[in-house]
């Protein structure tokens, strides 16, 4: 009932390896997810609208209601070993952010280090995949994504939550209906657009 495009989940994949980005993108797309890939943790944070220090503007990582499938991120999957900001660092920053902490995060690593795995899970990662990642791993993402759809409606969220599985989408201008967050510029989201969100990214 008109939910086709809007109900597509959007996954942000973070990996410094070109080969692995290509692979994860394909894997996610075969599960019909919309995918954005970035090559670093800092670019991921940029994309999510988070500055180094979780400021007010991070309340709205999404752009506008009308294009909510564009920047709303439903899950982040990140490599662990990356130069600069590791996947663990990224995970921490996300969980420390009031606007982003509800986004499920999955870590991938080529190394099977139990202490690393437990550290990530303790920090709030939903899953830890060993590379190379397979279809069977990607299949495990669904429940985590479904959970966030519910969260959007019940809690203080970080996304425009105008679609649900039960109710047809409300008319666009009322994004503050379902979202209890302290949305400052409700309608005037254009300032957010000036952020250099899309540099060096592959949005597909």
């Amino acid at each position, binding site marked *: 009932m008109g939910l086709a495009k809007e109900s597509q989940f959007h996954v942000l994949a973070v990996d410094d*390896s*070109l*080969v*692995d980005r*290509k*692979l994860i993108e*394909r*894997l996610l797309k*075969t599960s019909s997810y919309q995918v954005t890939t970035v090559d670093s943790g800092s670019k991921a944070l940029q994309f999510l609208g988070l500055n180094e220090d979780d400021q007010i503007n991070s309340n709205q990582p999404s752009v506008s209601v009308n294009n909510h499938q564009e920047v709303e991120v439903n899950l982040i999957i990140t490599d662990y*070993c990356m*130069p600069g900001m590791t996947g663990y660092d990224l995970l921490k920053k996300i969980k420390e952010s009031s606007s982003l902490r509800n986004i499920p995060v999955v870590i991938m690593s*080529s190394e099977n280090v139990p202490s690393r795995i437990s550290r990530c899970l303790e920090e709030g990662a939903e899953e830890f995949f060993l*590379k*190379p990642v*397979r*279809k069977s791993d990607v299949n495990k993402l669904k429940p985590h994504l479904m959970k966030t759809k519910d969260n959007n409606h019940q809690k203080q969220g970080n996304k425009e939550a105008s679609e649900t599985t039960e109710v047809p989408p409300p008319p666009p201008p009322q994004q503050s209906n379902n979202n209890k967050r302290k949305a400052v510029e409700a309608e005037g989201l254009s300032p957010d657009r000036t952020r250099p969100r899309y540099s060096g990214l592959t949005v597909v």
Partner: protein
Amino acid sequence: MDSAVLQLQRQLSDYKSSLYNEGFLDDQFTQLQQLQDESNPDFVVEVVSLFFEDSERLLTELTKTLDQQSVDFRKVDAYVHQLKGSSSSIGAQRVQRVCIYFRNYCDEQNVEGCLKCLQQVKNEYTLVKNKLETLFKFEQQLLAAGGSIPMQ
């Protein structure tokens, strides 16, 4: 069915099997092929091409880094780690294996060992590159003859 097509199919299938049997490719390559379909018919070639580009870059960097008066083993290790990762992601098993030994020599800060491994990994890389290019050529031939590539 066209006997030429059958022959080409057989050639392709035999060649592919040999690559697995000789350890050049492992199951991850099969996984890649399963991700390819009519909407993404060139996926495998594309990923493998990225692997070639990436590997060549890494091998060049490794050569340079190991050629220094004072070798920066952390850099060497970082490059080998990347090469190990990408070869693993496409199923280039023999390349991946050499990388494992390579990293051990890095940990030991053993230049000689590293240089030996560098040579070995270059050899393995060249081999798998040739093999894959041949494989893709066989596939092209089969497609050109009107056949379709069987799923392994």
